[in-house]
């Protein structure tokens, strides 16, 4: 859903970005960078020697990655995982990957399974299913979605502690809108 005042900003954008479905405000530019990165990665992979430095500019965006001058390791053919034991700290700031907001990394969201009205409680006047601070287990009801007068229970899909309730009681929500933020209880804390 969009707000009325700013037609290019949608409420969901105000929530932390869903990692699996990034929603860039300006998709074209970002797509450029991504494609450029892919192209360069492919290009670099065609040589057996790993590159020493990659500089990449697209419009105003600029990325530079530099490897140690005498790389002891084989070529980083797959750049997906974090490079092991890289001493010279390759920096890649593309898409604001997340050292500045480590909390977000561990949040887990309960999303709306469809368009409808989200309620915090099973019925009017009843206490809310969950509050901030509560610990929920998988399958535990955390709210209700009403769709064309039919209600269905929304359940937590992981165990976790409720850190934020993102949708108001009786608020209209859209598909995949984040409703509740959980801090999973069994987190493999990143390095």
């Amino acid at each position, binding site marked *: *859903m969009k707000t009325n005042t700013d037609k290019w900003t949608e409420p*969901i954008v105000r929530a932390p970005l869903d990692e699996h*479905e990034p*929603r860039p405000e300006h998709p074209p530019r970002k797509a450029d960078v991504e494609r450029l990165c892919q192209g360069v990665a492919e290009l670099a992979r065609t040589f057996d020697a790993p590159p020493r430095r990659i500089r990449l500019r697209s419009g105003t965006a600029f990325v530079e990655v530099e490897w140690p001058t005498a790389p002891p390791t084989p070529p980083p053919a797959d750049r997906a995982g974090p490079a092991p034991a890289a001493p010279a700290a390759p920096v890649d700031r593309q898409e604001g990957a997340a050292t500045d907001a480590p909390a977000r990394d561990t949040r887990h969201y309960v999303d709306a399974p469809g*368009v409808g009205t989200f309620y915090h409680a099973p019925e009017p006047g009843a206490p809310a299913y969950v509050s901030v601070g509560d610990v929920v287990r998988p399958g535990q009801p955390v709210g209700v979605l009403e769709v*064309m007068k039919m209600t269905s229970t929304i359940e937590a899909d992981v165990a976790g502690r409720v850190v934020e309730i993102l949708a108001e009681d009786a608020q*209209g929500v859209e*598909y995949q809108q984040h409703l509740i933020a959980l801090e999973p209880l069994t987190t493999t804390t990143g390095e």
Partner: protein
Amino acid sequence: MFSTVLVANRGEIALRVARACRELGIRTVAVYSTADRDSAVVRFADDAVHIGPAPAKAGYLNIPAVVEAARLTGAEALHPGYGFLSEDPDFAEVCEAEGITFIGPAPQVMQRLGDKAACRALMADAGLPVLPGSTGPLTSAAEAGDVARRTGYPVILKAVAGGGGRGMAVVRDPADLVAAYRATRAQAFAVFADERLYLERYVEQARHIEVQVLCDRHGGAVHLGERDCSVQRRHQKLIEESPAPGLTPALRERMCETAVRGALAAGYTGAGTFEFVLTPQDDFYLMEVNCRLQVEHPVTEMVTGIDIVREQILIADGQPLTLRQDQVAPRGVAIECRVNAEDPARGFAPAPGTLTEFVPPGGPFVRVDTHAFADWEVGPHYDSLLAKTVVWAPDREQARARMDRALGEFRIDGKGMRTTAEFLRSVLAHPRFRAASHTTSLVGSMNDEAAA
């Protein structure tokens, strides 16, 4: 007038409808699937609701999601576009029940006209010419054989719930009828969940002529002239034009009046299309009635100057038509070519991909209805229509030249992208198209010529 209208569709038609709403001062709400989150109509609309994942069944065909989206955004009316839920009487009924105006005919009218056997019977009663054939759904292969013997071969078997060129089979030899009956029945069940078939005579070398009507909720009805949609590939339209070339004024008048008579008999409201088959002997027969905006509505707009979507909205708002029949004065010739993301070299297989470049043609009297733009991903989930290219000119030959110029101007690029633009140019250049002596068999015979 409605203050908010929800557009329950995607692609170029969603943008088309949203534009008409904005010009009327109406706030627009788009709905979108996950695949369409960056679409042109989402960018354009005042509000947009994510209704589901990419598969149509879970998104654009998801009635509760669409209705909830309308409710949540305060939409007072809903425009269904074409395809998806546009001809679903249940959907129209749910909208009505929820107090949302469905911009289209009443559910009962859609129900009756959407059942092709019922429509045939109703229209025959109203005195409209229908092809000889079954009076209702066939009950058995044996009955099909009886009817076919009576009407004479070739015949065509059609699914009662059919549409989009699917669920039909032409039978030329009586020996093939039983097999065709069974196969088509199975296909109809698979595609439409309705195995009922009907049968009528099949006209070879026919033209597809359709008449656009507008009917208000006060008994007012006008036609906006006819369109020739004879350039088809497997019953799917590729090129449409208005007026239909070569019709005598008397024949044109008769066809248009027939359509209006049919619309009034059915209690039709809104914009509708009466599709006729026109024989080489200038006899015409009703094929079906389309209870929605057609893909090819722009050719009628270009010659009449009438914004059909605007008229749909005003009619749904309960306003009487301000247009009198004698004010409908078509001028010149308009042609539409459907540039699809398909690969003509691979049997017109859909060719999805991401557009790296998309510059549509421009210039005088050229209109391109498209949702595409550079960086847009033409996905595999929906139909392959990329850009409806419509031109107008004072006469058909100038319109043809203009269309050829426009199609040649497209700059479409992207990995895996292929379009029908060049193929369409070859149709425009075909002597039979140039002479307007073509029938619905043109594209098939061109493919045969190419293969020979």
